[in-house]
């Protein structure tokens, strides 16, 4: 039932990508996304695809897990594809019914579809190979300089990790409550919209009560261990760059350079 929903979708295995410092992976994802929007020509995308393929290969995550993220945006992908295909002005290529498909339209549609797909798969590589906790740790450390401008970086990171930690707990709780109410003859998928909304009450009331209780307990447990915010707090596993992380940064720099160069040699239209 609800247990089948994957959130935070971390894929547990051991690979060089998994072992990389989360900061490297966050930086890599950002650079990869930027590179997709900087590049205008086809060769640049070839470089991006090769880079991504190499990363996927190294991560030991089965390809079908990468594709899973695509399913969610398939609709969006199709809409952008067809809008670009039919609504781009330019030299007519052929006609379907009353709609004219232009050469520029084809080029733009393909480009946008490739961009979006790469974007999703690219960020999936990060979320699949990094635990949510590691991710928040990395973010906290990267955003540390913002503390100078009075941004409560530690608190935000703490809130994020608590929220992430609670997701599976509350999902499991939801499952149990649903079952307990179904055992009393409740159904959650019958009737019209109003009836459906009403049927959520027996689910939401116990869920909220339990969430508040858990939050209360957690606050108490944190107090009991003298939690006083981020000041002077050290980590059990501090993030530290290792050789492989510097190597990864180097590869990233080379990738970015290649992308920019390749993106300017062959014009996008010429391979069509």
């Amino acid at each position: 039932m609800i247990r089948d929903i994957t959130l935070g979708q971390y894929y547990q295995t051991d690979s060089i990508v998994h072992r990389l410092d989360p900061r490297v992976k966050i930086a890599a994802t950002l650079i990869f996304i930027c590179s997709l929007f900087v590049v205008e020509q086809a060769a640049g995308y070839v470089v991006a695809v090769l880079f991504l393929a190499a990363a996927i290969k190294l991560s030991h995550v089965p390809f079908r897990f990468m594709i899973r993220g695509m399913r969610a945006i398939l609709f969006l992908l199709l809409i952008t594809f067809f809008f670009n295909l039919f609504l781009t002005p330019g030299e007519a290529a052929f006609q379907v019914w009353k709609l004219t498909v232009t050469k520029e339209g084809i080029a733009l549609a393909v480009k946008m579809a490739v961009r979006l797909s790469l974007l999703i798969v690219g960020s999936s590589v990060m979320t699949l190979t990094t635990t949510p906790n590691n991710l928040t740790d990395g973010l906290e450390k990267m955003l540390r300089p913002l503390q100078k401008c009075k941004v409560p970086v530690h608190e935000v990171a703490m809130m994020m990790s608590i929220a992430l930690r609670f997701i599976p707990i509350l999902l499991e709780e939801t499952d149990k409550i649903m079952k307990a109410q179904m055992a009393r003859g409740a159904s959650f998928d019958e009737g019209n919209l109003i009836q459906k909304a009403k049927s959520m009450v027996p689910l939401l009331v116990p869920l909220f009560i339990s969430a508040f209780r858990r939050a209360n307990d957690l606050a108490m447990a944190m107090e009991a261990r003298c939690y006083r915010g981020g000041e002077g707090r050290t980590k059990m596993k501090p993030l530290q760059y290792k050789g492989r992380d510097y190597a990864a940064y180097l590869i990233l720099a080379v990738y970015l350079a290649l992308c920019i160069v390749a993106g300017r040699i062959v014009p996008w239209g010429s391979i069509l």
Partner: protein
Amino acid sequence: MALILDHVTYEYGNGTELTVRALNDVSLVIPDGQFIGLIGHTGSGKSTLVQHLNGLLTPTSGHIYYNGEDIHDRDFSKKKLRGRVGLVFQYPEHQLFETDVFTDVCFGPKNLGLDKKEVQLRAFQALKQVGLPDDCFYQPPFDLSGGQKRRAAIAGVLAMKPEVLVLDEPTAGLDPKGRDEILDLVSSLRDENGMTVILVSHSMDDVAEYVDRIVVMDRGGVCFDDTPKEVFSHKEELEGMGLSAPQVTDIMHALKKAGWSVDTTVTTLEETKREILKRLAR
């Protein structure tokens, strides 16, 4: 007739690498009117098993029959089944949601589509049966004590007038007094209404006093299914599964070791007392 489980297997996380087999080829016959204790260590599959009895979970393979009908047939009403096979979960907090206890107990019979009068009558009867004091009826369920909440939760299922009552660890988290009260309540419900009762627990002491039959589960399978006396005679095997025979059985075994010729198959406190007094009188 009643409930029949025919080679039921259930796997969590179907199709992924994380597939866990929670039930492995379980076959059981649960005749009418029996009081059954379902015992097993945490993770032995007992909770998964009871969720099959009212169709909350669908077996990966195998069939479940209620009065001869396959409960997963398309024309079999799951809702009706859930009225017949009442399942009370471990935590009353998971089901109490209304503004007062009485309205909450009405939820079950209302879902069965009964008219208002019948619903209220049943709710009232159920609350009386579980022995909640009258002044609790119109209190918010969250103000009740742990034991009272559990009674309210049991009443919520009883109000549907089930033929089979399944209780998943009804004594977890209660103090000894609350525990005894709940177990006495369940036992009297069975005697008064002639219901089939299935009591899920990991404590032998809980069930030994009351049940006719014990089903012991380990790693998704049934390993013992017999009368309490027979099951407890396998003391070593039970301990190997992380379970223990009731304390009285332990005492009798210790006495025998110390040279007393006592009957080690006793299971209840009363029997033990009689047995020891008998030996002392000699």
